[in-house]
């Protein structure tokens, strides 16, 4: 066991919720530590469709969730504009959607305070010509897309500025309980294997779908109902506007333009273990069939990959009916703060469950209000009032900004490593400088390298080369192993995403890339067949 650390509050889970809770606690004067088992935003936060909800998807069934969404939508635009692309959203009535839902939609929006304007179908088709020309009505709502990783980084930066800390790749492996209180936690460093003990006055679990596992460490039962949502990434933005079907939310009824690609969501399927699930070809085919009602040519467009996230759905035991558990869409998207004092006899432990990315700040506020009440802290919440660090008021994200910034600096030869996403060598160097010991996945999330249409086929080995060059200059001994992990890890990850969608032009592309890497570059010779599994594909030289 390494040295011991002491914090007022320990936050478990580095998704958007955990980062929001960390920031809020820090701003109220509580010295807090956030711990995350992997990199930040790699659980559900990094595996959703990218939608900044207007609330329109919930107005008919879950007015409370809709109200929270629109309120937070307005706040996030103010405090985190750089993380948001203001795409706007259309709710379109296709011939398949029932009239009564469509007819009541606008009134339901107004009742929930969600801005909603009906626009002529012709106007919508002019802006989004790939839409089904058979759509009957179109409503315009303030949906957008949101970049989760940048949002998390901003929250953590603000917390650090207020004297708190966040540690990634630290897995919580044990909680010490003394009668009705938790007194300390044990953390396992996922890269070095060392253990650290942290003493604390309070523990907040923001582990989402994994909350049951954390609670079990102090013999508390939190029964989550993890709901798998599968999404498909297309190689282009066939729409610049978020498109929703105007009907009761269902599978394959939303398309979100995110950076250079577009994401079709989602499915809803209960899973037992949030770490173990599979995406099937049937699921993919069903999603595309539904998506074709919005975009008739979807079946001909190129898919890049399929992925899935696990929703942190929670239903209080009394309301957990058979029907609700079978159909996760019946479980409320609203959030719940579980105070384990009165509930379970652990006085300094709360868990936040449910909710959605759009409302993460509100979830954090409600959670921290509970914590502060218990700790006797009276500072009010200020997270809705102040803009986050590294953000410029009113300046939302714009797809063309990297090129525009480059041109503003004189243009010319940009030293591009990733052509699809405009990632330059200086951008990569600066990220690697700021994130010692990071993995290639971290580089991807931090810079968007490899996330565009070629999915890393032409840039991954360049990153391996840069890493090799930097590590070589720094005299690191394991340069080659670092580069191997970058290349093999990328190819495996890419293959995993392609496997359930293997067909058509994406399979053709996959075959060509593996042909290049295997046939021309001999990638299989890098594989150490007998070697033990490496827990993380770390590419940054350790310091």
């Amino acid at each position, binding site marked *: 066991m390494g040295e011991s650390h002491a914090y007022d509050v320990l936050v478990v889970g580095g998704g958007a919720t955990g980062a929001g809770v960390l920031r809020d606690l820090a701003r109220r004067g509580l010295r807090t530590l956030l711990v995350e088992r992997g990199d930040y935003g790699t659980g559900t936060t990094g595996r959703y469709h990218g939608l900044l909800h207007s609330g329109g998807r919930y107005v008919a069934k879950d007015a409370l969730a809709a109200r929270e969404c629109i309120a937070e939508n307005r706040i996030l635009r103010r405090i985190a504009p750089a993380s948001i692309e203001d795409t706007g959203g259309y709710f379109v009535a296709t011939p398949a959607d029932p009239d009564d839902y469509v007819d009541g939609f606008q009134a339901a929006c107004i009742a929930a305070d969600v801005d909603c304007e009906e626009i002529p179908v012709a106007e919508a088709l002019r802006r989004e010509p790939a839409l089904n020309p058979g759509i009957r009505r179109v409503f315009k709502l303030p949906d957008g897309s949101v970049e989760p990783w940048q949002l998390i980084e901003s929250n953590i930066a603000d917390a650090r500025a207020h004297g708190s800390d966040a540690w990634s790749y630290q897995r919580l492996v044990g909680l010490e309980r003394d009668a009705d209180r938790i007194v300390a936690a044990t953390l396992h460093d996922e890269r070095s294997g060392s253990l650290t003990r942290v003493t604390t006055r309070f523990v907040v679990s923001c582990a989402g779908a994994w909350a049951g596992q954390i609670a079990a460490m102090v013999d508390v039962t939190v029964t989550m109902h993890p709901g798998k949502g599968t999404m498909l990434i297309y190689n282009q933005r066939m729409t610049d506007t978020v498109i929703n079907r105007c009907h009761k939310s269902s599978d394959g009824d939303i398309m979100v333009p995110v950076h250079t690609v577009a994401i079709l969501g989602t499915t809803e399927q209960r899973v037992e273990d949030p770490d173990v699930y599979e995406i099937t*070809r049937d699921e993919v*085919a069903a999603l*595309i069939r539904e998506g074709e009602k919005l975009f008739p040519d979807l*079946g001909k467009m190129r898919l890049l990959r399929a992925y899935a996230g696990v929703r942190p759905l929670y239903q209080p035991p009394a309301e957990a009916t058979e029907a609700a558990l079978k159909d996760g869409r019946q479980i409320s998207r609203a959030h719940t703060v579980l105070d384990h004092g009165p509930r379970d006899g652990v006085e300094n432990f709360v868990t936040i469950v449910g909710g959605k990315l759009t409302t993460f700040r509100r979830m954090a506020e409600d959670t921290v209000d509970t914590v502060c009440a218990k700790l006797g802290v009276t500072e009010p919440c200020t997270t809705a009032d102040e803009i986050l660090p590294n953000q410029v008021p009113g300046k939302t994200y714009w797809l063309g900004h990297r090129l525009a910034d480059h041109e503003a600096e004189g243009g010319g*030869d*940009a*030293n*591009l*490593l990733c052509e699809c996403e405009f990632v330059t*060598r200086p951008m990569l160097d600066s990220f690697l400088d700021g994130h010692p010991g990071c993995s290639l996945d971290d580089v991807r999330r931090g810079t968007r390298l490899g996330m565009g249409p070629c999915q890393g086929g*032409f840039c991954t*080995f*360049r990153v*391996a*080369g*840069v*890493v*090799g*060059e930097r*590590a*070589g*200059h720094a005299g690191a001994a394991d*340069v*080659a192993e670092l*580069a*191997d992990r970058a*290349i*093999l890890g990328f*190819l*495996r990850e*890419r*293959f*995993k995403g392609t*496997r359930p969608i*293997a*067909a*058509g032009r994406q*399979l*053709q592309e996959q*075959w*060509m890339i*593996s*042909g*290049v*890497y*295997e*046939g*021309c*570059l*001999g*990638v*299989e*010779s*890098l*594989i*150490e*067949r007998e070697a033990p599994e490496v827990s993380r594909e770390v590419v940054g030289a350790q310091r």
Partner: protein
Amino acid sequence: MPSADVVVIGAGLAGLTAAIAAAESGARVLVLAKGHAATHWGPGGIDVAGIPAASTPRDGIHRLAGLPGHPYAFLGDDVAAALEWIRPHLAAEGVDYAGDLDTPHQLVPTSIGGTRRAAILPAGQAAALSPWAAGERLVICGIAGFKDFWPEAIAASLTRERIWEGGNRPASVTPVSVALPGLAARHNLNALQIARRFDDPAWRTTAIEALARAIASVPGSGGRVALPAVLGIREHAAVLAAARDRFPAAPFEMPLVPPSLPGMRLYAALRAALIRAGGRVQIGEMIERVEHDGRRVTAVVAAAAARTYTVRTGALVIATGGIAGGGLVAERDGRLTEPLLGLPVEAPPADQWLAVDAFDPAGHPLEKAGIRTDAELRPVAADGASLFDNVRVAGSLLAGHRYIRERCGDGVALTSGRRAARSLTAVPAGHAAEPGSE
């Protein structure tokens, strides 16, 4: 209406080989292709049977021929003849190959610091084919600012024994990087752009001197030096000769990510050989349909340049490649189709296409998918009956082989292309060649 004795669809190694062989026998040949083929992303060698168990290509052919359904079962005996036949065609265009079926496979270092098995390589890579002598060094020489070749990472990787499967390897691997004239501040150059610079004699002289000085600055002497495959395109032979003359170590090229210069040189030589033999190539032709009258194909209809182009033909060679080339299309409903004639495709069911791990040592079942033919390369139905009289299938479209993983794709393409053409032109072609009639 334009007409040909033989239309070949596909301009990869199989298609161009078939076209050259058919043109040689006097047929009027037209190659139609929608674009460039695997030559442009391959390493430019002739991989015949580079499987780990095989000591030489000939041994590999024998082993692969014994696998169920492998095309070498009926093509294997012909590989040597096909290889000896194509060599002079390529040599006449200035592209020479080292090695033959009895050259022991050597592990050749690659531009990501791995190795691959090879025995027959173009002159620019030939120096990689001999075993490493005791104490012999390898220098990895990169070009400053060129982002598809990273000498430090390559050298660090090649220093490891396991990359060479624990066997013969260089005593040391040392990286060095050189700024080439006028390129020091350029970052977005691809291999082709640098190769074109090398074609210019004046620039070449300065660049070769700069490279020679940098290589000489590395401690040690002799040995070999690996460079990115950018040493000229049209003037490659001259660039290579200058490098051999000036460098203090024997130079060889490492193929890169596309565009692959060694592959492009091979393509250019095949194309020139075909034109010399009287054939024609049209790239950019999307085939709309193939017309047939019962068991005989009669015409090919292509769409390009805003018009429909119909060629009447006496025979057809389909060399459209496998999944990567678009010769096989994987439908979303799990079927595999051959889009030109709807030929039956031999393939595993969709849920067994791909293994769970990308690098499963057993490979992916889908790799063996393709069109089943008889020994004359006529496509056949499941019961073995041939489907068309004047159609042949060649190259990676053939069922039963893993053209990348078994490193046999070039051998299969070359041998099947030549045999397909010979099988077609053995029947009276109907027309003699009419040079100049195009």
